[in-house]
């Protein structure tokens, strides 16, 4: 069995068996969808849940990825990392294992959110819209997982990482196009939202919903993803124990 799959399976088993991490990962995005999607007094559209679902999907991938960085820190603090590094497979298979497990977790969570959104009255996606959505979420997940892994290796401390995590997540989410369209934003936020990578993923999913193919967004995310994976591989090869 490929070492990447072995590492991935290990983390998935630990996730399922560690019940509360799993339950929380399921409940949190559903709560967002319910309270943000249905409860906010929105005037620019009469079906806000359609609008906000891509934002919640991307936010879920964001938090799943950052949690994945936390897994890496714990592995390192508890001594697993050193054991793995002394094994024959190349170092970066640990990284790719983490990227894979985060992507799988993200996809499972996204599926649950989508089902929940459809239940709450969002317009059903066609199979090709679904495929496009998953494609973007996968690229975005790999991008964020690599970024999170690099930050985790760099910070090398659980508390520091949790602090960095909180500092990154909130501003990144609210400065994206997740909650409101560009036309509704205050003018100072528009340029920030336009360069926010989250917006690229969210806009991409929305463009798929209109029936077009968001080549710009997919292209930008793919290039950024390849670049960040490169950085993460470099960081992994250089890491000092």
């Amino acid at each position, binding site marked *: 069995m490929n070492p990447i799959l072995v590492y991935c399976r*290990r983390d998935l088993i*630990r996730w399922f068996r560690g019940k509360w991490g799993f339950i929380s990962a399921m409940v949190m995005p559903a709560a967002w969808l319910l309270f943000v999607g249905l409860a906010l007094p929105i005037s620019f559209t009469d079906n806000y849940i359609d609008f906000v679902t891509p934002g919640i999907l991307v936010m879920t991938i964001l938090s799943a990825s950052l949690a994945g960085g936390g897994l890496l820190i714990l592995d390192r603090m508890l*001594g697993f990392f*050193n054991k793995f590094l*002394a*094994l*024959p497979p*190349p170092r970066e298979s640990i990284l790719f294992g983490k990227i894979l497990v985060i992507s799988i977790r993200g996809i499972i969570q996204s599926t649950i959110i989508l089902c929940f959104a459809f239940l709450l009255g969002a317009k059903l996606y066609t199979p090709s819209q679904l495929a496009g959505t998953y494609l973007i979420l996968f690229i975005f997940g790999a991008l964020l997982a690599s970024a999170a892994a690099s930050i985790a290796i760099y910070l090398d401390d659980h508390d520091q990482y949790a602090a960095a995590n909180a500092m990154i997540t909130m501003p990144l989410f609210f400065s994206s196009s997740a909650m409101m369209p560009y036309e509704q934003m205050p003018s100072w936020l528009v340029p920030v939202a336009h360069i926010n990578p989250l917006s690229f993923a969210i806009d991409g999913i929305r463009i798929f919903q209109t029936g077009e193919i968001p080549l710009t967004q997919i292209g930008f995310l793919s290039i950024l993803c390849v670049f960040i994976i490169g950085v993460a591989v470099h960081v992994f090869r250089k890491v000092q124990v």
Partner: protein
Amino acid sequence: MEKEAKNDARYSIVTYDLTKKYGDLCAVNQVNLSVGTEIFGILGPNGSGKTTTVLMLTTLLEPTQGTAEVCGYNIHTEPRKVRESISYVPQDMAVDVRLTGRENVHMFAELYGVQNPAERSEEVLRILELSDRADEYAKVYSGGMRRRLELAQALVHNPKVLFLDEPTVGLDVAARKKIWEHIKKLRNAGMTIFVTTHYMDEADKYCDRVAIIDHGTIKAIDTPENLKKIISQDVISVSVTGPYTGVDLPGVRFAFFEDESIVFYADSGDEALPQIKDALSANGVTVTAMSLRKPSLDDVFLHLVGTEEDKGPFNLSTFRNMTRRRG
């Protein structure tokens, strides 16, 4: 010339001036070792460079200078070959508590690319006497069982060299003994065991050869027997009340202060005991207890690393506490 002589098939680990510096601090200083099929102990206090040496030999850390060969492969140019031939068990006791014992071992079998992972996992679990409880989560395993589980993980691919970093730290007496018995069996089966420890008595009892390291420098390498011959005298430990001002007796030499006691080396311990007592009493010092023993590895260690002029009694006892945190 020397290097070529050392580089032969009898040795599974050979180091050449292996050095690691962290800024100004020299963690490991020009270490030259040749280790064959034996239990080789590297002995030193915390922070003396034991673990750093192991990390370099297991390819986890790049040496600043010098190099090493493990199983004939260079740690710098053929790290993967090295990792395929060895196993490394760090100090931390990292087993996945949410996996069963069997799953823990099976995962490593797959990561090592073992041909028949399931069979091989069963085999090592049996060898380490974990078969009965292999289906339980590692969460319920005791410290000794977790350590054996780690050994099972390490042995699953039949390594030629096994690196163990403080294998018995934190274990009770029975569990420690069991771990060492397993290690001895492995050595008898032809494996090289490279073990770091700061427990002198264990090194004395179980290691075939011992290297004493302090501040990154190897002070001596030999069998425990030969090391103890460095101190060819008896060791006398005297507990006193009152200020010690020194004794001058033929065949008796002051060694060092140890906690509240004064330690002497004597050519003939039996005769020296009453002499020391009399001499101390004459100086107005009250002797409260005396003991006579053969030199242990502890004494050799203190003799080699702790007798520099600048180290007063206070330093020595601190040192002592550091090296024997056993309570």
